[in-house]
């Protein structure tokens, strides 16, 4: 047989091989130990010496050519086979997901985290205090002695043994001042309680208290920080902010902070603040001549309502899952 015929036959055999097994058979037929090309090589010895070199070269070329063709075909078939397997493994990716779902935080907690994150970045630390307090921490140490009219403004829950449910987070200021020397920068989020329930009051609600005490802390610092915070909280710096004189027994000067969101007509009261009253500091053994500080307190519910557009305070405590999931 002509070597060219052999090559043609082999080429067509490679091309018609439909799978890897058939292709391998073709390889064995031509290039195997007993394959046709192998046989031709073995028969080279029968040729005249002067023909051997040329014939050998020709056969080896064919051998190499076939090996390449087989390799090409093999790659072709492998890729077709993979494509077939992949096609077979196709799934409907639009079917619903299966597995643990993500849960979610209560919107009050979300707002609280958002508030705390701002102050944490400014080097404030989280402080905590008990929710059942004594009159001393809730009032007296905050320059609100017995029978002070400001006590009546807080409708406080009592236990009848001198203890009460804290009516604000301000007592945490006292705990912090008792155990920490200036410089102090803390915020204290938490539950507070007042004996009042209607559409706009809940007997339990949340506040975040802040306290900064250091040398040279001024009212201008307080104003600056409150501005920074409110811009951060609402994620925009086009909010109008105003401080208005107010009164808290434990700060002086005191201020209420109102904000007006762009496009709104009304000012909304969002927090109270002031310079820590010198009596509060000196009662706790802090040199009020050397150190000064400011404190602020804000209602988380009010801020959360503004931030998330919640229009009914009572939603926060119904724990309706449909409501809670809106914040996931």
């Amino acid at each position, binding site marked *: 047989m002509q070597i060219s015929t052999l090559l043609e036959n082999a080429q067509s055999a490679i091309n018609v091989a439909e799978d890897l097994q058939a292709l391998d058979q073709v390889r064995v037929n031509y290039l195997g130990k007993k394959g046709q090309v192998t046989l031709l090589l073995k028969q080279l010895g029968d040729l005249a010496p002067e023909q051997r070199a040329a014939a050998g070269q020709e056969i080896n070329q064919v051998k190499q050519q076939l090996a390449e063709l087989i390799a090409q075909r093999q790659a072709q078939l492998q890729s077709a086979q993979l494509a077939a397997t992949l096609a077979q493994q196709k799934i409907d990716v639009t*079917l*619903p997901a*299966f597995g*643990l779902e993500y*849960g*979610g*935080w*209560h919107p009050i*907690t979300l707002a609280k*985290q958002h508030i705390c994150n701002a102050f944490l970045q*400014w*080097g404030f*630390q*989280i402080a905590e205090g*008990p*929710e*059942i307090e004594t009159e001393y921490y809730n009032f007296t140490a905050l320059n609100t002695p*017995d*029978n*002070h*009219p400001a006590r009546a*403004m807080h409708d406080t*829950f009592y*236990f009848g043994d001198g203890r009460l449910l804290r009516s604000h987070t301000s007592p945490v200021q006292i705990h912090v001042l008792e155990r920490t020397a200036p*410089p102090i*920068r803390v915020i204290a989020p938490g*539950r507070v*309680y007042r*004996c009042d329930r209607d559409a706009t009051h809940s007997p*339990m609600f949340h506040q975040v208290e802040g306290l*900064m005490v250091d040398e*040279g*802390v*001024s*009212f*201008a*610092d307080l*104003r*600056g*920080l409150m*501005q920074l915070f409110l811009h951060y909280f609402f994620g925009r710096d086009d909010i109008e902010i*105003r*401080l*208005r*004189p107010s*009164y808290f027994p434990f700060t*002086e*000067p*005191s201020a*209420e902070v109102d904000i007006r969101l762009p496009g709104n007509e009304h000012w909304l009261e969002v927090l109270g603040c002031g*310079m820590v009253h*010198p009596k509060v500091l000196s009662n706790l053994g802090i040199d009020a001549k050397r150190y*000064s500080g400011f404190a602020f307190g804000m209602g988380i519910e009010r801020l959360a309502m503004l931030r998330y557009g919640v229009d009914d305070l009572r939603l*926060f*405590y119904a*724990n*309706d*899952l449909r409501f*809670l*999931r809106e914040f996931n």
Partner: protein
Amino acid sequence: MKISYQWLTEFVAINQSPAQLAELLTHAGLEVDDCLPVADNFTGVVIAEVKSVERHPEAERLSICQVDAGEGTLHTVVCAAPNVMAGIKVPYAQVGAILRQQSAEPRLIQQATLRGVPSAGMLCSAADLGMAENSEGLLILPPGALLGEDLRAYLQLDDTILDIQLTPNRGDCLSILGIAREVGVLNRESVRTLTNLPNPTSDELTVAVTLTDTLPIHIEADQACWRYAGRIIKNIDNTRPTPIWMQERLRRGGIRSISLIVDIMNYVMLEVGQPLHAFDLATLSSAIHVRYAQVGETLTLLDSQSITIKPDTLIIADAKGPLALAGIMGGLDSAVTPATTDIFIESAFFHPDAILGRARNYALQTDAAHRFERGVDPELTLAALERASALLLALGGGNAAPVQEKQTSYFRPNKDPIILETAFLAKVLGISLPASEVADILRRLGNTVAETAVGWKITAPSYRFDMSLAEDMIEEVARIYGYTRLPAQAPHLKMTMPFVQQQNLTAEKFAQILVARGYQEAITYSFIDPQLQNLCDPHTAVLSLVNPIASDLAVMRTNLWPGLLSALQYNIKRQCDRAKLFEYGLCFTPTEQQPRIAGLMLGLAYPEKWHANAFTNDFYTLKADVLALLALTQNMQQFVIVPAQHPALHPGQSAKVINHQGETIGWLGAFHPQLLQALEIKTTVYGFELYLSALTQAKLPQYQPLSPFPQVRRDLALIVPEDTLAGDMLQCARQAAGEWIMDINLFDVYQGPGIAEGYKSLAIGLTLQHLQRTLTDVEIDAVMQNVMLALQQQFAAELRQ
């Protein structure tokens, strides 16, 4: 404090509209809550006289009135008011008048026919005109009112009430005079003074002393009552109606008109801020005593309530006993009546410390106590008495006796001077204000100011009770200078060592795990229903509120389940059939406040699914969540979960978590069917609770070398009595396996055909590995033999054939 804008303008010139004034005051710290009209914005209402009244032939409750509005002709008006009668003057809404009741549509008064009788217009009550919440009948005007005069003009109804939310430090602003002073400071206007009060009457307001009667005054509590003044006035006609202008001013100040004498007392209080009291002289015996009550003394108050007076309460008494709670409320027996002709007027200075909290002790809230608690100007006593006397003589007739006054050694209207240093002012505010401006502000506020080398020496006026420190003065300067004009700056911070460490475990870290595992955070009240509390945790002592807001919010929670179960119940009622809820917060016993975290789960683990693997949440999914939380400690080996009984949990499906010190640090299980039944929950609910005070620190991880040698896994299929605890077996196997054990894993539990009744089959996989070499088969077999032997001895375990 409700302030009539119109009245205020008599005390100080005001260039602002009521709304602008409200803004001004709010920015000065006197927060104006609301600006309210004194009447509806009606038109076409005039003064008319009812000439005659006939019963309507068709309707018993209707009257046919002939009404004269001063035009010479009479109008026929049908009227339903019970107090209509001939001769009275009333507001008459003519045909064409427009009434606007606050939220309602404007109402045009037209010619109408009522049960066959034509009616031209309407006679009005105070409520019809927005001058009262509700009225019993027509608003009756004084006989002297001019027929046909527009009612708005006659009553000066184009006025605004400023409702000011005064802070407790500003007792000096509880009067027209006080607010006027504040406006004067802000607007740089001069203000009327006690010697220069406006005259609202047509008479000259002077007091001619024509009697010599006296009533001796004895102050026996000289620290509490610095000053007590009084005067006898006789022959007053207390049946005279209070002038309509005074009634209107009282109404605008939120005070009900009672009788001429009482109205004048209240008028002077609204005007200048001094609470006054008038005693019926005929009921008093020889002298007035100001003293603290003796134990057991009783008094019937003006509101007819009888009280036993506490010894901490200052009283006014005569020889017979208590007459009044000083500075709070008078007694019924000595009160003036319409028949009263002779009175003793009291004007006193009671120190705030003697009044604070006393009214509240008797559940009283009075205008007098409100003012005395916050401080009444001690320099006001005589002026107010004189003012009330003059008004009484002018409006009620009568003859006045001389003023008697007692002062005690404590009487000290002048305040101690305050030194305000320029540097301190600048330090607190963060800005240096011009010295001249500071001094100007301080003077405008009524202070006496002297410049010193370092700043100012300031004496506050007698009416300010909130001025004793330099800081008080700084606040005043800042307030009047304007908070909006003060600078703002970002604070400079010194860095400090944070006290939060890497291993600190906060409640939020635990909560984060639960959120990632599909739980939704709930926030429930810390006070709960005592019944539910008792169902969930009957053996723990509870803390009860003295003044709960509702009987079902009366005790402090001792664990978090009642709140979560109530929230679940709420959702189940709204067609929720699967939920995972959690909460973290404090729980309370009489002696402790413990932070805890708890969760509960209901229904399918995944939403209703096309997928074959959907399954229902059960104890073991719950347990996985608990373990995930405990894993935060990075020290899981210290915990064991053992069977245990809890009143809220199913006795066969409950366990507690114990730490290495043997303390219980949490519970988990299915809720008790009886508890669920009480909550009308019909599906099984699983729940857990962990005590976070036992989980505050994670272990700092320490690197352990990794073995490069192969692991070997060997399995054991064992048959044991069915009540054998798997946890005990795994622990036993782990110990018996020795130091090469890397992991131990229970992968099958079987009961049924092939296993004898009363037994179960457990399959355990052990993974072994050596740190320094490959384990040999001989070594591994020896380990497995040890394990098998131990399990045989402890649990009578046998290999499953």
